[in-house]
């Protein structure tokens, strides 16, 4: 009896209204007695609303039929009815949950007035009604109820700007609802009913100009409530000025209601789907462009909100148009939940941190918890894994590709990229642009930090948690391999929990976790994936040993590093393009955050993130096309893509090449490499860059070979690779900053690998993989050496160093060996790679590429020598006289890698045989061995013999010199004992030739490397800002103008859809 009372009466969806209205009556009563008790009633009512929605939704998910609520005891269409189905339930639950959290957030403001509590309940109830009602006029009522409550709540704060914004809001929405009413009544005139289901059944009665006007009025006024560009200035003003809790509820709650209303009436609007999609797309794109120029945090959120609603509208219209309504829950639902939690969370954060200008957000630079929340919200908003938006966007793009809507894919991806640009620019401000992680941050001026209590953070934290949970659920729905794919996040979370312990212990824990996790993830791989797992996971661990050279706190570093390394393992493990993309994005996000931890890493990290995201979106587009063409998500099915294979290859290759810092899109690379923490740079260059190579090999193998070799884009790719190599080397020559120089060098060396892969021949691939291993070894050594140097000298400019060979002999020897291995001088490993590449190039007939390869490896000598000369040789600075050798923990991984270089140099077959075997499934082996000699069509290479001969010809003169030395008195002299034109040197600084080392080279061909790419991208930023300025001229702040826009919007809709004549 009791239980049936509960389930039938109290827990009936109608209970939501009962609770809201009942509490509405009770609150003033209780308020008389005590404000606190009114608040209690308020929360009880909200919680009840959440509970009712949740329990009913649960029942429906478990198979119960959807609940129809009939009023006045008469069946529809003669009475108003409400429906609580799956979609409605989901929306209602989401909105009520958000409302509950928002209420918690703005409680301090709400409890000023009892009426505010009441209005809040009414507003939520109105939104619930908008979602549930099936009656058109009732919809109008609920819209107005919500609106009036909203107006009142906006006016809760009585400053001039809030009131002005509120007044504009009222004017705009009341004009819109007026038209809604007109449309409703016209529909009634034609159909004779107000019940939406009934109208849909009799949709054929809606005809002629009146029918046209009626549907258009209803649709347009609802669309306007969603604030489409350009008729949305009024919404922005409210987002900017109203209390953050109310703004968040307008953004996620009211919009959700209106959005659902549109969804309900859409069956009437089949002919307008294109217009709706266009409006949604344009709003999404334009809002995000304008957002680029916005520097007020709250207004920025407004743009983002509007953009997200545009995206939702776009997705809805397109899905219906493509008849993929079965995916609505996943795509639109996913996007909606994502937007709701993330956007509301951001509004709340904006509220509690209360800094209007973006640049003032450095107030949370020293608050890792808040930064984490902010970052998660932003990551979720732009659709990074594992949040719901990621899955929804993926699915949306896949469906669009299947439907051939390439233009819309472009709109979605470009819009997302723009959104990422401004959101993470904001994050950069919050991160603080020049943080000093070297441990002496106490001396820096720290801006006053925001004071935020845990209670204030609670709603945001809950939203974050929900994002994760829902993301995980969606992952399950997408048939992702769990928990394997989520292992990086779990590991990161576990390490984050112990982030308070000492530095080295944390590092050790990280190594253990990554080792175990990496082994678990990769031990059952085979073929080329296994090979890369040794390199990425094993190599990553090896280089990561060096992180223990620092014992300071490094908050967040180790968890993120674990996420990064394990996401690489996930990448290797991926069977489907979705899993691959998941791993890829996870890698992007974690490496971005790691770069921001560097000394001045925040700004370059933003560049890095944007280019990485652009790369990811190219990859996504490529995968989508492949899915559309082959109907399969399996990576091994990429090749079954028929005619579009060239396009797919190009898109994917562009993506991977961006990630590897290809020529022209390399500008993110030096900054990110240079400003990241020194040990992390080693990982970035030696390990993370290999992910791009893995991707390239993957697509080359699956796309290039299965369908005929000789794919045209590969030739272009070959040229891109070699130009990258050449210009990377040239730019490295002119750098003064040691890390930037080696970063450019890294870019150049990767260029050879790209060319090797592009060759699409066995030898080409073997050379590419061989160079990949080699690149890992020498770049790992180089960057770790540099880490040691920077640690000791606290300096990155090469001309401020010099003569360090005396203090750091081991580092010097390691660096020298690494450089010889890089340069391609026999007998070390570099030669083998160059030799095979050159042979493969000649074999393929790419002669001019071969010439470029030759030239760039010659240019590489310039910077390699410069590195050794200006840092280790020449004159040592006085202040460096007492420096010690780099710590042993930094040298240990280098030593292991040196040993590997030596072994591979002498017996390259140890490496070449497995490489060749890994390639075998795609291209059969063409390596011919004669004893230790490798034979190709052109030449031969006997590495052990070369090693022996070089060793011999080096030893003999050495022995002779030693013998001759016995007959001489050799005096070991100091650094100033040089011939100096009969004068004596005075300062090491002016005796050390290091600054602008290749000035003459610059004079000769420096014009080739003037920063054109940088200038281009800077100009691109300029253009987009100019575009943003011209696009936002509509927002002049005048409410009347806004009203005019709304009217004109109606007119435009009429004209656009064929005018009254249709």
């Amino acid at each position: 009896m009791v239980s049936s009372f509960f389930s039938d009466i109290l827990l009936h969806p109608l209970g939501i209204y009962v609770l809201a209205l009942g509490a509405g009556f009770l609150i003033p009563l209780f308020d008389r007695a005590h404000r606190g008790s009114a608040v209690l009633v308020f929360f009880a009512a909200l919680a009840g609303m959440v509970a009712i929605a949740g329990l009913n939704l649960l029942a429906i998910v478990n198979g119960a039929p959807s609940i129809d609520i009939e009023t006045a005891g008469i069946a529809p269409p003669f009475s108003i009815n409400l429906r609580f189905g799956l979609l409605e339930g989901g929306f209602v639950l989401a909105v009520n949950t958000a409302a509950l959290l928002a209420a918690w957030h703005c409680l301090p403001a709400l409890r000023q007035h009892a009426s505010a509590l009441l209005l809040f309940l009414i507003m939520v109830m109105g939104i619930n009604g908008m979602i549930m009602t099936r009656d058109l006029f009732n919809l109008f009522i609920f819209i107005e109820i919500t609106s009036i409550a909203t107006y009142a709540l906006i006016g809760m704060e009585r400053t001039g700007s809030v009131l002005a914004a509120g007044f504009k809001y009222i004017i705009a929405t009341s004009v819109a609802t007026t038209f809604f009413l007109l449309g409703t009544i016209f529909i009634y005139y034609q159909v004779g009913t107000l019940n939406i289901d009934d109208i849909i059944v009799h949709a054929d009665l809606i005809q002629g100009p009146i029918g046209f006007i009626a549907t258009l009025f209803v649709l347009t006024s609802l669309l306007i409530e969603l604030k489409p560009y350009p008729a949305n200035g009024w919404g922005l003003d409210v987002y900017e000025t109203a209390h953050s809790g109310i703004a968040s509820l307008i953004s996620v709650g009211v919009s959700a209601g209106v959005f659902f209303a549109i969804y309900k009436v859409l069956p009437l609007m089949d002919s307008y789907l294109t217009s709706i999609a266009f409006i949604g797309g344009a709003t999404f794109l334009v809002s995000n462009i304008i957002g680029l120029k916005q520097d007020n945090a709250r207004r920025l959120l407004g743009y983002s909100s509007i953009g997200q609603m545009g995206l939702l509208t776009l997705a809805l219209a397109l899905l219906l148009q493509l008849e993929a309504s079965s995916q609505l829950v996943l795509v639109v639902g996913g996007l909606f939940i994502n937007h709701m939690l993330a956007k509301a969370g951001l509004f709340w954060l904006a509220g509690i941190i209360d800094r209007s200008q973006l640049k003032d957000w450095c107030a949370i630079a020293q608050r890792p918890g808040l930064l984490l929340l902010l970052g998660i919200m932003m990551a979720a908003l732009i659709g990074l894994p594992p949040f719901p938006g990621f899955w929804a966007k993926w699915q949306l793009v896949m469906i669009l590709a299947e439907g051939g809507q390439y233009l819309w894919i472009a709109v979605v991806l470009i819009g997302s990229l723009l959104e990422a640009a401004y959101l993470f620019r904001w994050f950069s401000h919050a991160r603080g642009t020049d943080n000093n992680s070297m441990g002496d941050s106490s001396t820096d001026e720290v801006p006053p930090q925001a004071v935020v209590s845990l209670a204030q953070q609670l709603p945001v934290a809950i939203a974050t948690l929900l994002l994760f949970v829902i993301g995980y659920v969606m992952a399950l729905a997408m048939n992702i391999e769990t928990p394997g794919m989520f292992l990086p996040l779990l590991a990161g979370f576990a390490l984050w929990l112990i982030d308070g312990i000492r530095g080295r212990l944390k590092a050790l824990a990280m190594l253990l976790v990554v080792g175990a996790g990496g082994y678990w993830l990769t031990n059952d791989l085979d073929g080329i994936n296994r090979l890369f797992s040794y390199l990425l996971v094993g190599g990553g661990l090896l280089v990561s040993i060096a992180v223990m050279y620092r014992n300071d706190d490094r908050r967040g570093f180790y968890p993120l590093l674990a996420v990064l390394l394990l996401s690489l393992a996930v990448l290797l493990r991926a069977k489907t393009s979705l899993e691959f993309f998941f791993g890829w994005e996870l890698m992007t996000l974690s490496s971005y955050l790691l770069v921001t931890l560097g000394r001045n890493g925040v700004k370059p990290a933003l560049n890095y993130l944007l280019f990485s995201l652009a790369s990811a979106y190219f990859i996504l587009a490529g995968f989508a096309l492949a899915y559309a063409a082959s109907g399969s998500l399996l990576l091994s099915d990429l090749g079954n893509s028929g005619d579009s294979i060239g396009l797919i290859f190009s898109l994917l290759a562009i993506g991977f090449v961006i990630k590897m810092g290809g020529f022209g899109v390399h500008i993110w690379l030096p900054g990110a490499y240079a400003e990241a923490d020194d040990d992390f740079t080693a990982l970035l260059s030696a390990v993370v860059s290999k992910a791009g190579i893995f991707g390239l090999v993957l697509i080359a193998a699956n796309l290039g070979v299965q369908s005929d070799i000789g794919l045209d884009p590969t030739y272009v790719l070959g040229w891109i690779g070699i130009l990258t190599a050449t210009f990377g080397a040239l730019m490295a020559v002119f750098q003064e900053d040691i890390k930037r120089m080696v970063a450019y060098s890294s870019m150049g060396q990767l260029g050879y690998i790209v060319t090797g892969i592009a060759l699409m021949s066995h030898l080409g691939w073997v050379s590419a993989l061989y160079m990949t291993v080699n690149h890992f070894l020498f770049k790992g050594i180089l960057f770790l050496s540099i880490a040691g140097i920077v640690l000791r000298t606290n300096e990155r400019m090469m001309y401020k160093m010099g003569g360090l060979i005396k203090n750091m002999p081991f580092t010097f020897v390691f660096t020298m060996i690494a450089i010889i291995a890089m340069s391609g001088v026999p007998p070390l490993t570099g030669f083998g790679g160059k030799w095979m590449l050159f042979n493969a190039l000649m074999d393929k007939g790419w002669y001019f590429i071969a010439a470029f390869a030759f030239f760039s490896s010659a240019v590489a000598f310039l910077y390699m020598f410069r590195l050794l000369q200006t840092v280790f040789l020449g004159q040592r600075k006085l202040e460096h006289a007492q420096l010690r050798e780099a710590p042993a923990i930094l040298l240990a991984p280098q030593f292991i890698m040196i040993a590997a270089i030596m072994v591979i140099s002498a017996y390259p077959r140890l490496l070449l045989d497995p490489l060749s075997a890994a390639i075998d499934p795609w291209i059969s082996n063409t390596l011919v061995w004669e004893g230790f000699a490798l034979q190709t069509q052109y030449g031969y290479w006997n590495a052990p013999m070369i090693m022996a001969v070089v060793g011999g010809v080096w030893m003999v003169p050495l022995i002779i010199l030693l013998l001759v030395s016995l007959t001489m008195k050799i005096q070991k002299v100091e650094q100033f004992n040089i011939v100096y034109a009969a004068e004596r040197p005075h300062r090491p600084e002016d005796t050390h030739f290091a600054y602008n080392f290749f000035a003459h080279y610059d004079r000769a061909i420096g014009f080739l490397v003037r920063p054109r790419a940088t200038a281009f991208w800077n100009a691109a930023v300029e253009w987009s800002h100019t575009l943003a300025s011209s696009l936002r001229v509509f927002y002049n702040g005048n409410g009347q103008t806004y009203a005019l826009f709304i009217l004109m919007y109606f007119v435009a809709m009429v004209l656009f859809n064929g005018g009254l004549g249709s």
Partner: protein
Amino acid sequence: MSILADLPISLIVLCSGLGLVLIGLWGMLTQRNMIRMIVGFSLTDTGVHMVMVSIGYVTGGTAPIINDAVPMADAVNRVVDPVPSALVLTAIVIGLGVTAVMLSYAVRIYKARKTLMIDECTESKW
């Protein structure tokens, strides 16, 4: 006179209602003073109400009371549609509410910044 007489009353109401809507919109768009804009809104609102009423009116129809005078079978043709009238009642209430909120905003704005000119309330923009 005769033309007017020939016109069904509902059409006259409809036309004047639409006219009121337009006048109201014109007022909202051209009058800088908020109070005048609110008046414009009121006119629009009233216009819409008139349109609604006119939609349901059947010329020569009787009150929608089903009794002996109007048999059930005949009702559709002879009675005035009661639904729009009912809707108008609700709409008027809502319109009243909105107008009230608008006016209170106007009062508050005047208190906050001593002006009622809408073009002086443009500090949030771009």
